């Protein structure tokens, strides 16, 4: 299968995630900065992140993968996407 997202590099993924976050929060997020530091991330925002990742990168995030730590930074999101896209272990 080939589609426009087949050959995404980590840098591509991080760029797309970064653009999404910037549009949502009107802030620039360095790759390792904790999005959830305030302790009050709305479930709406969490849901938006999950839906964004699934629809943009064509993956399903389920079970134990659906954890805050996987969405905590731009970098952890790109690792999750890379792992799911290369068929790495998902949670049950």
């Amino acid at each position: 299968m080939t589609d426009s997202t087949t050959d995404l590099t980590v840098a591509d993924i991080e760029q797309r995630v970064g653009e999404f976050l910037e549009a949502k929060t009107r802030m620039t997020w360095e790759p390792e900065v904790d999005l959830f530091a305030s302790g009050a991330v709305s479930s709406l925002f969490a849901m938006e992140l999950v839906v964004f990742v699934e629809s943009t990168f064509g993956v399903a995030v389920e079970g134990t993968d659906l954890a805050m730590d996987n969405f905590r930074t731009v970098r952890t999101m790109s690792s999750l996407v890379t792992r799911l896209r290369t068929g790495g272990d998902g949670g049950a």
Partner: protein
Amino acid sequence: MSETPPVVKCLVWDLDNTLWNGTLVEDGHVEVDDAVRKVIVELDARGVLQAVSSRNDHDEAWARLEELGLAEYFVLPHIGWGPKSESVRRIAEQLNFSLKTIAFIDDLPTERAEVEYHLPEVRCYPAEQADALLGLPEFSPPVVTVDARRRRQMYQAGFERDQEREKYQGADEEFLRSLDLVMRIGKARDEEITRVEELTLRTSQMNATGVHYSDAALRSFLSEENHDVLVVSMTDRFGPHGAVGVMLIEKAARAWRIKLLATSCRVVSFGAGAVLLRWLTDAAARAGVHLVADFRRTERNRMMEVAYRFAGFTTAQCPCLTSFSPPEGTECLHLEPVRQDPPTTMRVITPEPHVAGPEAEWL
């Protein structure tokens, strides 16, 4: 099936020859029948929201509604020249209501047909039925609560908030802090149960199990030693949000089980559900018990699953789970709680968990 139709949560009015007699553009001066005025005031008192979809110049039509003393009864006026199905759809979206709970009244059969064609779930009424609406079951909610009577004001305050938010250039979190949000969590008193029950009916998106607890069922838990019914209310600098959440908790020696957690869509964007879970996690950590949460996937509650999972709940096995017997088809998510810091975006005022004592701020 002869099920009773769902109660209408919002009625969308056409203006010309429906709400008022005549056509504003052509007649210049239009009046409202006393019978129609009575319908508007009474629906408002019953907690049915009312909106406008009209082909008119917005400023002129709204000015006339203000002169008539009726503007304050309406939320989300859509006065312009687009298709009415589009304004009705947008009103439903902005209120976060299912189309099944929206009604539309218009004198023109073509307008009703256009709405019916694109939005078959919306119930359409001809203008001549206006003065009969109050007698219809779908416009007669079974219980009218304090919050129902104030619902329109709360939505109006909500739209003001949204406008401020659109203007606000900072990060979301800073915006939330600028609202001076206060969340109060307390044990439900008898008279609050009706509001709470209504909340669980209205919030299927944020209900973790899809199970509806009736008024009587919730009331019966008030007297049970091993259950807590907690009501959550919020205020901010624009005014009160009223009762916005409910939790039903069963307490066992080793764990507390969340049997019901429902929050209103009005406060989802404030992170209310996440703050509640965080507070309960902290309380459980202090009490030295595990947390268990009932979850049953429905088509509409994935957000709830995300909320639990992001709060650290997993499907792990733990001996504490044997204390509970969830209904079939419901899974128990599990968390070993650790102490949590209070949120930075709102103040939380709570009773000491499960102890009768004075309320205090979570600091």
